[in-house]
């Protein structure tokens, strides 16, 4: 401040201090403008918070986070979160938060995998030289991206509840899985003693593959001799666990769902709420991923492909070494952004009652406790952390993929 005044004095040496000069000094102006903004924002916050406390007191709403320890007292639709947290109505509200968080993450995880698969398929099909396939893929994209996601979620859920058959007339897939209005019944895996070794073998296989790949890559760089590693990878990642599985006496059994007189018995039921939500989210997000992948592949210069074939690379080599690395550089950032959108959209599950964060914690608990500021604050914090995580991932990928200049 002192410096600014001195500066303005310096510019008008012959007249001494001049208020006019201060007014037209850019730095002084900037300073006052920022101070004014700061004061306005602080003033707004101060009034709002003051009103908040007064209102809360007048309405008799509690404050603070002690409600997290209180008994929740309501049932949650049984899904993964319930089993992980071991939830009962006697559990505290904090458990509800964890149940919701886990269920949100489950939907996001499965949805991301599914949408990537569908998106890849559709994006590549869009570029196919088969007229019918390319038009069908285009139709898929135009159809599903122009319908609001909430409407899609409600539509598929309604299809499950009102249109799908009752358990007695379930769609059956070779008697292994059944689909009806109560959900999807899958064989339930029951791990026995010794299954741990199979899991260990799988992990060891993956780690070993990494080292094998590194070894052959080094060899390739040193000698120029290329060795295809996929048979070794396959035998390490899949063969090794199978051998361990057979040696340890098949320690994994399946409990199959059996069609009884009125209902299905046994097996593992996936609730329709989850199926409808995941399906709708994946189908919707896949349209955006497909567009990202298509534009990525189209962004690769035609000359690149021609150059690849000119130096004698095969079609697969050209795709693997030349086209895909360049296409992915364009396609991956928007795809990761879509993952964030999918996670945020999973909060719409509250309309069909899938027990994720906003329907259990931000819904039922909010209605019971009424402490909207704390509860919504916690929910927003979760999404903030998720999106921070995803943007860190995005930065990392961008850095990794940046063209190395010299």
């Amino acid at each position, binding site marked *: 401040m002192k410096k600014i005044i001195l500066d303005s004095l310096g510019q008008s040496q012959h007249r001494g201090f001049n208020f006019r000069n201060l007014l037209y000094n850019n730095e002084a102006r*900037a300073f006052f403008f*920022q101070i004014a903004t700061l004061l306005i924002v602080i003033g707004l916050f101060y009034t709002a918070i003051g009103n908040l406390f007064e209102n809360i007191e007048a309405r008799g709403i509690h404050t603070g986070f002690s409600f997290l320890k209180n008994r929740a007292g309501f049932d949650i639709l049984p899904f993964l979160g319930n089993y992980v947290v071991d939830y009962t109505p006697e559990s505290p509200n904090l458990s509800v938060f964890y149940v919701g968080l886990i269920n949100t993450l489950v939907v996001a995880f499965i949805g991301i995998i599914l949408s990537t698969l569908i998106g890849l398929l559709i994006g590549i099909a869009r570029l196919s030289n088969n*007229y019918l*396939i390319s038009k069908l893929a285009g139709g898929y994209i135009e159809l599903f991206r*122009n319908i*609001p996601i909430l409407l899609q979620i409600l539509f598929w859920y309604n299809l499950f509840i*009102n249109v799908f058959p009752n358990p007695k007339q379930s769609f059956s897939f070779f008697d292994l899985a059944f689909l009806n209005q109560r959900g999807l019944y899958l064989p339930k895996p029951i791990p026995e003693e010794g299954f741990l070794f199979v899991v260990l073998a799988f992990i060891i296989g993956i780690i070993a593959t990494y080292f094998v790949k590194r070894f052959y890559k080094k060899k390739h760089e040193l000698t120029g001799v290329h060795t295809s590693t996929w048979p070794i990878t396959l035998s390490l990642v899949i063969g090794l666990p199978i051998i361990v599985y057979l040696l340890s006496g098949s320690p994994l059994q399946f409990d199959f769902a059996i069609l009884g007189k009125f209902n299905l018995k046994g097996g593992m039921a996936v609730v329709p709420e989850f199926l409808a939500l995941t399906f709708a989210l994946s189908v919707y997000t896949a349209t955006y991923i497909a567009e990202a992948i298509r534009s990525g592949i189209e962004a690769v210069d035609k000359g690149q492909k021609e150059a690849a074939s000119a130096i004698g690379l095969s079609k697969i080599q050209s795709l693997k070494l030349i086209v895909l690395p360049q296409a992915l550089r364009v396609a991956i950032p928007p795809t990761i952004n879509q993952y964030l959108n999918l996670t*945020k959209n999973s909060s719409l599950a509250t*309309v069909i009652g899938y027990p994720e964060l906003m329907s259990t914690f931000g819904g039922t608990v909010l209605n019971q406790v009424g402490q909207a500021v704390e509860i919504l604050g916690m929910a927003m914090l979760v999404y903030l952390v998720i*999106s921070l995580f995803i943007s860190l991932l995005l930065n990392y990928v961008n850095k990794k993929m940046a063209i190395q200049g010299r």
Partner: protein
Amino acid sequence: MSVYDQQATRKPPISQIGAILWLRTNLFSSWINTVLTATSLYFLYLMIPPLLDWMFFNASFSFGTINFFGFDIKFSEAMATNTNCGREGACWPYIYEKLYMYTYGFYPRTETWRPNIVFGLTASLFVIIPLIKNYKYKNRVILSMIVFYPIVSYVLISGGFGLLPIVETHQWGGLLLTLVIASVGIIVSFPIGVVLALGRQSKLRVIKLFSTLFIEFVRAVPLITILFMASFVLPLFLEPGNNSIDKLLRALVGIALFQAAYFAEVVRGGLQAIPRGQYEAADAIGLSYFQKNALIVLPQALKISIPNIVGSSISLFKDTTLVLIIGLLDMLAMVGLTTADPYWLGRETEGYVFVTIVMWVMLYSMSRYSRKLELRFNTENTN
């Protein structure tokens, strides 16, 4: 020496011309393509006929009364209920009967002409603006439309000012409410978005910090958390005793703030695309900050970002359906409401299909429009 007659030109082989060539190159060029074609044909065979059966051939069409923008058209004397519909197909009389609800919600039936004028105005906006492309005073016409359209619409829909009977906001619903939320959301959030974008680009640290914080925070959380905040927490922030704020207004505040952050990012993209020389030239001829932005930077930046602005507005239009979660009766919410009617229990599928068709047609035409804009603005510099 033999003389050869010129032979008549032979026709190309049948496999190299016309439809057969097209089929060979586009559908059956290799055995993989043949398999793919067959699979997709089978897929279409599985999907299309049952859908057509449900929608048309097994559906019930002709009884009950259709209410088209407030006018009743009677089909037959048969009682319009669930029981008159076949079981195999759709029951469209349900849509006829509830069309009024889907369009206006609980808007009083005697006042239907008011939203109708607004619908007409909205449609004419889209028709007139492309038509007057070459008209001399087109900027003035468009500007005056942008200024008067919201005012006229507001006066017509809500009434009051001693002119028209007041219609409370809880009576608004259906397509009308969807349009109100979307257009108010866009009109209010756009200026806020521009200011935020300028703030984020500003050299003033405090302003840059606040703008960035707001934009990043809003973009990180789902709209539903913001709508919940607006509907549960916003009244608590207002002066005690004077804080009963209209439900629709609360939703609009939430949506406008949400959309402003997205517009801000779109406009920022445009601002970043302006060459530095433009800023420097404006400084060099001694323009003030506001002159520089209003006369030099923003006109160019906004023009570049028009396609993205339209794209962002389309997303907002899709997002308006979320207001049903906080209890507003937009078009999508009408499905649940009208099928709770004991005459029409279990007709959700028809309702969802109807809303899907209406929404899809609107959103698809908007996205076509935005693509057209994108092409127009792309070619301008390359030619």
